[in-house]
């Protein structure tokens, strides 16, 4: 069976002056359609870099990345933009809605860049808003909505393009715990309905809502398995302290990953 997301020996190396920082240090990973995976790690672990590469916002220094069977690791900016448009739906911590556009226009955006006709754009955006239960807020500006509602709009926007993967980067980070739980259960619902969800977080309590956890540390995968396994939520203290002994390296690594 073909994997939806397939990392083969991915390296991402940033040159910081004389020092080469390995933000991803030989990561191999495969995610199949219908999975709900949380990529967990502390800051500096390389999870942001991993998410940038999965999201086709960045390319690896070496290694190959296949998304839906297509090698996207060597694409140029415009080709990546097209892949993002067709295959990926982003959910960000800060919602990232465009403040001047109303809810409907925000949800229509990915469809606009896909070159879909105005009428179809509207229909699909409305359907998408219905899925997140906000079809009555179409004409509102983002600033007129609560944080939880704004995040639901951004989910609707991610869904509108009918993507292969939903990529959620700390989706609950800016929300209180109750609305955070709502958003998570909504992601679980989407997954039950067949969507593939990749969640990036530093928070174990959020990560366990996924079915599978991939833990990164210092650019390497240190755990990959079922989220209910007790081993999944173990924060490897010794290794973390080892890293902090080499204070300068850790600092640089963090900066690179930020």
């Amino acid at each position: 069976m073909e994997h939806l997301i397939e990392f083969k020996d991915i390296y991402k190396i940033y040159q910081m002056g004389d020092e080469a920082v390995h933000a991803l240090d030989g990561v191999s990973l495969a995610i199949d359609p219908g999975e709900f995976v949380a990529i967990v790690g502390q800051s500096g672990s390389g999870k942001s870099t991993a998410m940038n590469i999965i999201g086709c916002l960045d390319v690896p220094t070496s290694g190959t990345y296949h998304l839906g069977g297509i090698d996207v690791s060597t694409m140029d900016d415009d080709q990546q933009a097209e892949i993002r448009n067709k295959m990926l739906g982003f959910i960000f911590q800060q919602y990232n809605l465009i403040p001047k556009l109303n809810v409907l226009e925000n949800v229509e955006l990915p469809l606009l860049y896909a070159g879909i006709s105005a009428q179809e754009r509207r229909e699909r955006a409305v359907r998408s808003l219905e899925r997140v239960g906000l079809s009555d807020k179409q004409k509102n500006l983002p600033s007129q909505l609560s944080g939880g509602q704004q995040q639901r709009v951004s989910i609707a926007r991610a869904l509108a393009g009918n993507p292969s993967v939903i990529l959620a980067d700390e989706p609950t980070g800016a929300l209180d715990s109750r609305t955070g739980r709502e958003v998570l259960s909504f992601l679980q619902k989407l997954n039950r309905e067949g969507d593939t969800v990749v969640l990036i977080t530093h928070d174990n309590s959020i990560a366990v809502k996924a079915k599978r956890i991939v833990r990164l540390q210092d650019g390497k995968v240190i755990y990959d398995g079922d989220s209910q396994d007790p081993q999944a939520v173990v924060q490897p203290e010794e290794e973390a302290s080892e890293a902090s002994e080499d204070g300068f390296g850790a600092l640089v690594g963090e900066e690179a990953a930020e």
Partner: protein
Amino acid sequence: MNFTQSFKLAVKSLLTSKMRALLTMLGIIIGVAAVIIITSLGNGMQKYMNDQFEEMGSNLVQAQVYRSWSSMDVTAKDMYALVEKYPQYLSGVTPYTSVQGMVRHGSDEYKRTSVYGVGETFYNSSKNSTMQGSKMGKGRFLSYVDVEREMAVCVIGSYLEKEAFGGDALGKTITVGGAPFTVVGVLEKSGDNSEGSADDTMYIPYTQADRLSSGSYLDMYLFTATDRSTAATAKGIVENRLYKAYQSHDNYFVLTSAEMMDAMDSMVNLLMAILTLIAAISLLVGGIGIMNIMLVSVTERTREIGIRKSLGAKGRDIRSQFIIEAGTTSAIGGTIGILLGIVVANVITIVIGAVVGTGSSDFHAVPTLQGIAVAFGVSVAIGVLFGYLPANKAAKLNPIDALRYD
């Protein structure tokens, strides 16, 4: 990204910060308005002058002859003969001698009145028009007999009649340089009936004029060509005759009214071109203003650009969005400038009309449709041109950095 969407977005962002939008557009507004005003004024001036010439007769040929005080000198008779010889090109001629003599009536002096010595041919009775387009009001024009017998008679303009005779001049006497002349005719009003205008004139027989300004070295003749199109040939005929008489080009100067008109036109055109160029500098400054604001706007909207890119906007989508925004800004500025220019041109028309009193052929500063179209096109082009650099900067932003930008 389609055009209407970008356009709507551009209008929206202009409306959200009206003050800033206005200031951004100000350079373009001023530049376009200046161009419209200048072209309107030039256009109006040209039309006004052409009207004046048309009224005077566009088929006139004027010959100035510097006397040599010898047997070589041409006389009025020679000129009359010339017209008879070439009837297909020349339809008439009259001496047209400017007389330097004070016009007096009783104790009143009329310093600005122009006095000309002319022949009876100056007036064409079948067309009821002088060579310069005036009509007879009362009485008659000078006759052949008046000229031949050197009669002390005159025809005056309506201003002089009103001022000197209170509107009833026929049969009365007025003096020029001390010599009395009896008024036999009054011309209809053709100018605005003011001092020094086309109505403040006096015509006497040229034979009388020669006597009044004896020793004058300059003779003037007015020819009428059969048509405006034959004026150039007519000029050649007159020049040939004068060259034959004097064997030198230095003794005479022949000019057609069409040439004068062309000379004036090209002068006005040159003046307009220079002024428009100066106004165009303001358009350039306006363009730089737009570029400046667009660069600020790109920086402010870095995050928005990042969001759009993450959703699949390509470099060209972002670029066209910002270029359309710059173009829209300058197009709106250009439209405001055009309207402002038209309003100001109209105000100038009214002010000039009131201050100068231009009389029968009114001065209208009218913008040409062509001028408006060019001004609008140039302003849009400037927006697009100066919007390109900021738009390109936006298009090249890295989506990761842009998304993280605060």
